[in-house]
């Protein structure tokens, strides 16, 4: 059911939620976390949809913070959705006027008790997420460098401001590639000399993969450019020749290895809902991300000289 409350307060939202839950026979008692989405009217639909899809794996209370008309009178409108799109509950909070600057005062009383809080900025993120009022309440802060106009600079900013609990969806996007690369080196492999990651210009996931490989393998890994889509190839020069994992079409990857037949595997690009579901699976600080970000800031995985 959907309940619209205009010019309301958090107390009234609470009241409406409890009533709605009672009328529905008490769902959402198994909420595992509160997810705060900081967004605007234009982008909220996609973000909330992705969050409710991810909610099938992680039943959550989704609080969408939408700021509107900063010059208007302060006002809070709420749209409560319970039992519509799956488990959990979604509250769209529209904040008008100066209230938009004090979103944390609205969000704090609405956090589900006893469970972790995650804040997600699907578009523009604050330069220092952990110091943002909506970031300080969260154990986990999710940004998305790919949404920025200058993704690499944003990653460098994030590296400077990093606090345990920060994470970025461009890192999440790299997981299938990293998983396949790790599986590739599960087999005995010839000594690696250097590496290269090819992707569309400005693809932050490729920057991170290059930095990660360089850091882990202790070899120079260059970041090269290609026409895309997304990441198209990761390759290593080895003493026996070139080992490459290439994905020219954004769907299927082929592993070529000296002296072996080409092995093919599906490697598709994932939807936002899948990315968010992966992010929510583990809420402890991601130390590997932190190290990779630091390595990136220190110049690893840089563009070809």
């Amino acid at each position: 059911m959907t309940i619209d409350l205009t010019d309301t307060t958090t107390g009234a939202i609470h009241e409406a939620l409890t009533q709605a839950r009672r009328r529905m026979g008490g769902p959402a008692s198994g909420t595992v976390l509160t997810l705060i989405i900081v967004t605007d009217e234009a982008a909220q639909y996609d973000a909330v949809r992705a969050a409710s899809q991810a909610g099938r794996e992680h039943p959550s209370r989704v609080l969408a913070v939408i700021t509107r008309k900063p010059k208007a009178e302060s006002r809070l409108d709420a749209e409560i959705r319970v039992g519509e799109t799956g488990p959990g509950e979604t509250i769209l909070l529209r904040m008008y006027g100066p209230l938009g600057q004090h979103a944390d005062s609205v969000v704090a009383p609405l956090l589900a008790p006893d469970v972790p809080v995650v804040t997600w900025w699907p578009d523009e993120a604050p330069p220092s997420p952990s110091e943002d009022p909506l970031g300080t309440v969260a154990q986990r802060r999710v940004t998305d460098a790919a949404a920025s106009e200058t993704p690499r600079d944003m990653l460098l900013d994030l590296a400077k401001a990093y606090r345990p609990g920060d994470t970025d969806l461009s890192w999440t996007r790299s997981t299938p590639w990293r998983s396949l690369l790790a599986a590739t080196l599960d087999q005995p492999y010839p000594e690696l000399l250097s590496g290269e990651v090819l992707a569309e210009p400005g693809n932050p996931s490729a920057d991170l993969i290059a930095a990660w490989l360089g850091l882990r393998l202790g070899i120079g890994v260059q970041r090269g450019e290609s026409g895309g889509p997304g990441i198209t190839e990761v390759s290593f020069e080895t003493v026996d020749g070139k080992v490459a994992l290439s994905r020219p079409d954004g769907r299927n990857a082929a592993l070529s290895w000296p002296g072996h037949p080409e092995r093919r595997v599906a490697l598709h690009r994932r939807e936002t809902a899948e990315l968010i579901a992966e992010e929510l699976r583990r809420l402890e600080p991601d130390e590997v991300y932190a190290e990779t970000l630091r390595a990136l800031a220190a110049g690893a995985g840089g563009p070809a000289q």
Partner: protein
Amino acid sequence: MLQSRNPLRDPRDRRIPRVAGPCVLVMFGVTGDLARKKLMPAVYDLANRGLLPPGFSFVGFARRDWADEDFAQITFQAVKEYARTPFRDAVWQQLSEGVRFVSGSFSDDAAFDQLAACVRLLDEERGTSGNYAFYLSIPPGQFPMVVQQLKRSGLSDSAGGGWRRVVIEKPFGHDLASARELNATLDGVFPPHAVFRIDHYLGKETVQNILALRFANEMFEPIWNRGYVDHVQITMAEDIGIGGRAGYYDGIGAARDVIQNHLLQLLALVAMEEPVAFDADSLRMEKEKVLSAVRLPADIATGTSRGQYSAGWQGGRQVRGFLEEDGIPADSRTETYAALRLGVDTRRWAGVGFYLRAGKRLPRRMTEIALIFHRAPHLPFSATDTEELGQNALVIRIQPDEGITVRFGSKVPGTAMEVRDVNMDFAYGESFTESSPEAYERLLLDVLIGDPPLFPRQAEVELGWRILDPIEEFWASYTKPEQYPAGTTGPPSADALMARDGRAWRRL
């Protein structure tokens, strides 16, 4: 010089899943229901989740006049219909490139030679590196022949590098002697660590969660003993009859079919001591220890019960009795319901009754483990206040609606002090279920990775038969199953069994 250390693996990197290495999965019995409804979809789901290696190949073997494409089509339909994860064309295309079919009967030497040639060709074409897993989704009577063929054709020989694994499904024999015989068949060909016995119950998330519940928490373990637990009820109720399984079921019965494996495994997980580590050997050691401490009732006649469903109404439909089912002889003495009272002779559990029951055509489908606690030693309320207060209970629901219920007394709102039972409920998946992997997915992946914690070892199978054999022998010589109308909760003797101990079954 080849390097074998993999610096890309880091235990802190929790995002990177375990992925199987290059391999071929060879499946026997691909025309069966299990293959179509569970195994083929599980292979696809694994591929879709990116957990299968590049070049992974899937070979079917059956007595059908099929080409590779026909088998790929059969697999495709099974995937379309039963896969858990959404269908993606690219994933299927990749998977189908590695699908092969070899036609022949199990006695046909030429067919197995052809199979051997087929997997070797896959090694060359797709780089599967000589690693083969053989899934025997076939009746146990055919194991010896297939295993011998694997040996004869050189398929089981891993001397040239690469691994060999063989997967078998229950039943692992029908008594201790036949279980040993079966094991001897495999033993000569595959080393013990290469034999994976699938008990799909152990692949269920909720069953694995028993270990998390017990050993990751502080609040349950202190009361997990005879000081607090009065008795334990382990139930596996099915609403269906035997359906098309008459040929298998007659002569087997409920106890051999599910109690010997599933229910005793559940008992082991609930009753075992804490393993020193969550690895295969430590887990199995504890399970074997507790299974070897299981004690049978002193008098099997009163400590067990068995029944057969008769015609009746189940779930709003009129159904036939067991003896009228197609393929069941009218004088069959096979039970469709079995209940046992077991004890566990350890300090932790001395005197605590473990009541196991399994049956078909019961009111509803439900598998659960219930720990029923003692009543409070003293109640400071008057007897009338607590009239409606039962015993506290902790119930682990295995299926359906996986979760945990804790039942305890609570004050009824009002001016009088009245205490009544209430439930506190944790639904394991309020909706986790929708995306949590199927048991077969997890188990297949474990086979391909070679990770054995969730597979029972021969010793556990034998311990199970040691518990059941005396009961089966007694039943065979002295009793006839009691009739219970379909749709009811089992034979009267099962209720009498509980009543003698001053207890009652939980309602189904």
